[in-house]
């Protein structure tokens, strides 16, 4: 017998389904300030996504072409504003590579220690913010409390909490303070306690895990193709860490592991950062044992390093040298160089072109976030609307460096 509702099934009962357009950001609490995602939804599933960046574009590369080489440091600070020290050191290393300068050993250890502290602050911010965006506010407060400890140490060292401008070509702005090692040793223990407490709240929480596990999966092959680096790439199972594979500073002399994820989902990216925190602490411990308590921090090279203040005020040579370095800038030999370091989010590259003058001809920054955010569209297409928040959070996009 024929079904009675044959005709109805074909026509009237079919509800017309029009795709819904939704605009997410740039003013959205989970968009880390400045990303706009235009979505086409079918029900709650994302059919198409267009990720638009650039809302925080400040013309970093153009500004660098106007001052001296040393005047880039404050700009570099403001690229990744949760780990500015790593940018400072990355840029300093790039210019030093172009000048063929090797900083003294004590400075190398010092830079490593400051860099690892910044990395801890970066990962704490990232994991904490991710938890907060999923509604877990307490762990966020604890992680921020732990970050406070890092910032207190950095404030003691550099005088500034966030934008230190502490790197110099051929050294650092100041030698380590007397209490530095003690502060770091004590701070690391406190941070670890706070992180462990925060972890306990999150990693046994069914809601938190369910929202992260198997969401936003990126395969290792795709991640490499997209140019992902750093924790996000390692979460996909590729052990690419510049500190290990192409060591700079003294990273070849310290012992640390490169944590690698399996699935490449949000949970892996979250866990990798927590694992890297502990590796950073391990590196910090070794550095504080190896760093000498006295000795020069800056290279003895009058071409790039400012003379001591008492010489500037008492000798004509010192005055002239100071004047030339400030007014004309340190002369960097003509040429081009690409220098890369492991920043909080991955490979931070500086491609510098010099025409031999005191002003950079071209400063090109390769921000790790840019490529990572470029993969967001692929990650969220096909998932649910609510998956955007944890997925985007796990990438740790930093507007400052992503938008240049």
């Amino acid at each position, binding site marked *: 017998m024929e079904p009675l509702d044959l005709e109805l099934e074909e026509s009237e009962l079919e509800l017309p389904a029009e795709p819904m357009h939704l605009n997410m950001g740039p003013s959205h609490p989970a968009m880390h300030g400045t990303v706009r995602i235009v979505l086409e939804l079918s029900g709650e599933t994302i059919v198409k996504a267009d990720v638009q*960046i650039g809302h925080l574009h400040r013309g970093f590369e153009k500004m660098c072409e106007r001052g001296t080489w040393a005047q880039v440091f404050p700009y570099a600070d403001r690229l990744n504003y949760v780990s500015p020290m790593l940018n400072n050191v990355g840029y300093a290393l790039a210019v030093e590579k172009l000048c*063929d300068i090797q900083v003294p050993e004590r400075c190398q250890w010092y830079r490593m220690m400051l860099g690892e502290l910044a990395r801890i602050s970066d990962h704490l911010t990232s994991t904490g913010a991710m938890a907060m965006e999923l509604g877990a506010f307490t762990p966020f407060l604890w992680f921020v409390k732990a970050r406070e400890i890092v910032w207190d140490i950095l404030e003691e060292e550099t005088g500034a909490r966030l934008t230190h401008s502490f790197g110099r070509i051929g050294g650092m702005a100041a030698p380590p303070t007397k209490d530095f090692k003690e502060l770091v040793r004590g701070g690391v223990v406190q941070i670890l306690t706070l992180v462990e407490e925060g972890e306990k709240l999150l990693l046994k929480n069914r809601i938190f895990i369910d929202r992260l596990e198997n969401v936003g999966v990126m395969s290792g092959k795709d991640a490499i193709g997209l140019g992902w680096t750093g924790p996000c790439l390692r979460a996909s199972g590729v052990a690419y860490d510049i500190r290990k594979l192409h060591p700079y500073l003294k990273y070849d002399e310290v012992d640390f592991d490169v944590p690698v994820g399996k699935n490449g989902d949000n949970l892996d990216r979250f866990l990798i950062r927590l694992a890297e925190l502990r590796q950073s602490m391990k590196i910090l411990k070794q550095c504080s044992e190896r760093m000498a308590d006295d000795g020069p921090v800056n290279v003895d090279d009058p071409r790039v390093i400012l003379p001591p203040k008492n010489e500037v005020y008492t000798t004509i040579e010192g005055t002239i040298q100071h004047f030339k370095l400030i007014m004309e800038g340190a002369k960097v030999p003509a040429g081009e*160089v*690409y220098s890369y370091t492991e920043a909080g989010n991955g490979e931070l*590259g500086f491609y510098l072109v010099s025409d031999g003058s005191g002003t950079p001809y071209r400063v090109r920054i390769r921000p790790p976030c840019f490529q990572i955010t*470029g993969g967001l569209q692929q990650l969220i297409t096909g998932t649910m609307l609510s998956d955007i928040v944890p997925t985007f959070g796990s990438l740790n996009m930093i507007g400052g460096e992503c938008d240049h």
Partner: protein
Amino acid sequence: MSEAVLAKLKETFAADILETHSDHGDDTARVTPASWLAISEFLRNDAGCDFDMFIDLCGVDYPSRGGVVDAGGRMEVVMHLYSTTKKHRVRLKTRVGDEDMAGADLDSVTHIWPGANWLEREVYDMSGVTFKGHPDLRRILMYPEFEGHPLLKDYPAQRTQPLIPYRTEDEAGVPLEKLPPFRADEGMSFGRRPFTETDEPS
């Protein structure tokens, strides 16, 4: 580092490799724009090169050199590649465009490395190089109405561009009062202009 890659390139594309150097340990090859795509494909697919990671792409502007035939074009496009299997790097450069940036186009390599997608958009946006075959070539950092390309050396750093005006009634196609959902005093860019007496329909 990987001078073997440079040797291999010279062997395979003898006529297209214009110069090579390894200053500061960065292996660099400057190639002709016409061979950009072929060399990219070679670097990706050759077993000895296997450059699977697209690191960076940028443009460096040399306005004074434009027009000099043997020196190539004005805009130098620089690509950095890395191989996660062979652990080596290479820098590939080419020069395009004449003095007025005419003819500044290059083949897109997005189909070889998906990561090139956004970077090519950025070079297009900032330096004004058009990538042929790019799936979605539009500005990425600047807004669509922006005129010019900021990283050209002849773009003045102090130059400002006018704000984008609000939509008028003609453009919106509906009476401004009907434009949801933002009120005029909220100042949203896609809202409407503040209401004045002159706007009163006659």
